[in-house]
């Protein structure tokens, strides 16, 4: 007798199966040596989960995340998009193995710069260049002299990723100049667009908070392309580059 699949057992316990299917699953469980023990173990696990993560605390966090999505209604903000990144663009490019630091005028807005690796060499991409699935892309952060920066991305299917620093507990310090990330990405074609966001502040940033804010935005397809991340900070600035993907 094969093991009864977990989804069926879970939904049986929830009373979510139609009567004939429920009867079949009960019969299969009764016919397996550990059927009763399995159900008892799930009861125990329910109690353990609710004790470790109580409903009130869980609901509080859900409502907090929901409010974070609600406050980011799309609206224009002067200077929110950096001059060097197009307000809307259909290109993404990346891949730079090494970029020498560039002179930056103090007080210029921080920006994201994108390159693509072509035949082993980096190619700078102007706004408007179209990217295809499979393209290798690398980001560089052009810092304006303020101390700390985090780069995240979000796509049209609700996914969000951290790009700089490379770890959730990584250092967000940002010296003036150009800082390529230490890795490249291969563009997939699983979502209609990809948006990179650079968050800069005078004070240290928490990559976890920035990524959580990006995930909250990504949940809402109506705002994911444009809405600013709900991040608190005295001198927070956000820079975005959005591109649409062209499948192979």
């Amino acid at each position: 007798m094969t093991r009864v699949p977990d989804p069926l057992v879970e939904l049986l316990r929830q009373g979510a199966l139609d009567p004939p299917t429920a009867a079949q699953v009960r019969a299969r469980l009764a016919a397996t040596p550990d059927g009763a023990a399995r159900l008892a173990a799930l009861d125990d696990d329910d109690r353990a989960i609710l004790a470790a993560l109580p409903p009130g605390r869980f609901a509080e966090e859900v409502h907090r995340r929901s409010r974070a999505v609600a406050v980011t209604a799309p609206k224009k903000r002067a200077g929110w998009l950096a001059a060097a990144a197009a307000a809307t663009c259909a290109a993404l490019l990346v891949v730079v193995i090494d970029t020498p630091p560039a002179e930056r005028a103090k007080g210029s807005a921080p920006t994201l710069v994108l390159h693509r690796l072509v035949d082993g060499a980096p190619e700078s991409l102007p706004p408007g260049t179209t990217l295809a699935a499979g393209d290798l892309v690398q980001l560089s952060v052009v810092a304006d002299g303020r101390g700390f920066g985090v780069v995240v991305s979000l796509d049209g299917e609700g996914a969000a990723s951290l790009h700089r620093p490379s770890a959730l507990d990584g250092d967000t310090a940002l010296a003036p100049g150009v800082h390529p990330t230490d890795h490249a990405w291969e563009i997939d074609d699983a979502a209609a667009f990809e948006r990179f966001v650079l968050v800069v502040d005078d004070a240290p940033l928490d990559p976890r908070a920035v990524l959580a804010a990006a995930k909250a935005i990504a949940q809402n397809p109506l705002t994911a392309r444009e809405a600013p991340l709900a991040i608190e900070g005295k001198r927070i600035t956000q820079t975005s580059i959005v591109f649409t993907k062209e499948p192979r």
Partner: protein
Amino acid sequence: MSVDIAELYRRHGPMVLRRCRRLLADDEAAIDVAHDVFVKVLRREALLEEKGMASYLYTAATRECLNTIRARNRAPRPTEDAVLHEIASRDDLAAWTGARALLARVFASEQPSTRVMAVLHHVDGLTYEEVAAVVGLSVSGVRKRLRVLAARAHDVVEGT
């Protein structure tokens, strides 16, 4: 339907969290995604009914976990030493990279709901009828989606 998240979590939350743990193999990530699943419930509370809530939450958890896994897989390629170590440590590099690339191409243009059905059928081992019972589609609808997916997989493999 007006949603009491705390009550909903009490009744269905452990099931959601177990599903996330099973698919993500990471407790912290599972708790994170479980919260996101219930955020989606809040956003859709005007459209949801109590009947079918458990099935909705189960499929939503599966879908959110697949999104998380896909985001992980988009993680940047390491360079230099880390890449060399990865290559050196894999005896089946050609097969591994090939299989990953093929799966990515097969699933790239599929609807999220099809991916959920594929996980239920190919990973969890449910029959077409059982998948239909979980996702709330007709058996013929499930069969058609998974056959189209299988045909696409065949085309991708034949094209390599």
